[in-house]
């Protein structure tokens, strides 16, 4: 009888102590874990980015520009047409470039290749590049997300 009583009292105290410790631990660990998760920055909705003048690019030339927090690639094809893409390779995130010698978009990291419509045609990239819309007003070039 007597032993049982002490046992249940001890059990109760153990639960109390364990519960307190667990709560305390949770109180400490929760904010720590939440802190490590970087806050989402409000993504500025990009409607349109000015990328310079038509005369900046001769046919068969290209340039990289800032499209929000991502790099964009603007190409003027040999035919004089303007094309733009998000320049982030769909394989592992490297930044692609236009190769005028091969007439392709090329990723140096693992030799990924895209055609001038952004289609992945060789190497490891699993998906096409994200295309962007090019508008020309007078002689200024604007790039915006594809609707």
């Amino acid at each position, binding site marked *: 009888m007597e032993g049982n009583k002490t046992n249940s009292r001890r059990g109760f105290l153990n639960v109390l102590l364990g519960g307190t410790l667990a709560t305390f631990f949770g109180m400490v660990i929760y904010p720590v874990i939440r802190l490590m998760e*970087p806050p989402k920055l409000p993504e500025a909705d990009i409607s349109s980015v000015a990328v310079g003048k038509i005369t900046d690019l001769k046919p068969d030339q290209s340039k*990289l520009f*800032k499209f929000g927090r991502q790099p964009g690639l603007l190409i003027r094809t040999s035919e004089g047409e303007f094309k733009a893409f998000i320049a982030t*390779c769909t394989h592992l995130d*490297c*930044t692609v470039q236009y190769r005028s010698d091969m007439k392709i978009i090329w990723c140096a990291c693992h030799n990924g290749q895209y055609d001038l419509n952004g289609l992945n045609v060789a190497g490891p990239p*699993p998906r096409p590049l994200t295309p962007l819309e090019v508008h020309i007003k007078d002689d200024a070039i604007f790039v915006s997300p594809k609707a």
Partner: protein
Amino acid sequence: MRGLINWLAERYQIDQLLSFAKKKDVPIHKEFVWYYFGGIALFLFIIQVFTGILLLLYYKPGADTAFESVQFIVTKVKYGWLIRSIHSWSANLMVLAAFIHMFSNLFARTYRKPRELTWISGMFLFFLSMGFGFSGYLLPWNELAFFATKVGTDIAGAVPIIGEYMLVFLRGGQDVTGGTLSRFFGFHVAVLPGIFTLFLAAHLAIIQFQGMSTPLHLEGKIKRKMPFFPNFMLRDLVVWIGVLNVVALLAVFFPWELGVKADAFQAAPAGIKPEWYFMFMFQTLKFLPAEVFFIEGELVGIGGFSLAGILVVLLPFIDRKSSRGIKHPLVTILGVLAVLFIIAMTIVGYTIE
């Protein structure tokens, strides 16, 4: 000196400390040379701590300052180029020594009972060394490191379920930015050294308690032993002096390059490579087809390497035969295959475009 020792001995139990230090013997046999590699890795870690702290005097994390501060270190600070070069070379040699140390213990089955935890703590030290390398690589904020970090963290992001969380946790956001650099800096100079020191202390303490092991196939054939303290320690010291010379020669004659500052809005240059000790995994991922049995090839690769890593950590509990004094040939065969695979894939990674 005598006086000081007596003074201490009157107050503290120095003799106990001394007998603890003298407790360990080193078996003498024909494969003796492998005993040095753990000590070499330890010595190189000590070099890393010293040179790392020296670099901290001038290094400034941050996307606008990191590259410039390392440039300042190697061009303006007296002997800065030397210290940075030593930190880089010694980092690579430390990982190499850890590789050799690990495989020599694997082949000798020293992980068998009662040394299971020595093996496991050693494996954690090995993974932490790679973490040191991966985080340190980004710190100079040059082009190669920037894109290698993008690729490396993107691979982590491909892991199912937790991948996205890991990617954001590592990068401190969706992209590799100055925020990533801050995190890596914190891991590199605070988190990893703290955890590493704990595991190192445990690893060394267990070894001191249990003494040095004998390779399984030589058990019962040991005729002579040498006290660790001071005999083997003096030999260790001689080897360390040799290693210091090698590090110094490499650092002076092949100073570590700094490269070009990273620019998120520049195309990736050709020749993006991870550090050599990640190369074999990286190259394997490249060789895997896009799909293996309806699963994305990359996932198969990541899963395979993770599984292999877990199996190696748990090896003492998988290879039960070794505790009964039986050398399972499968461990040797897989071990040799792993070494050959790592070497072959590394070479391929550096030669094939």
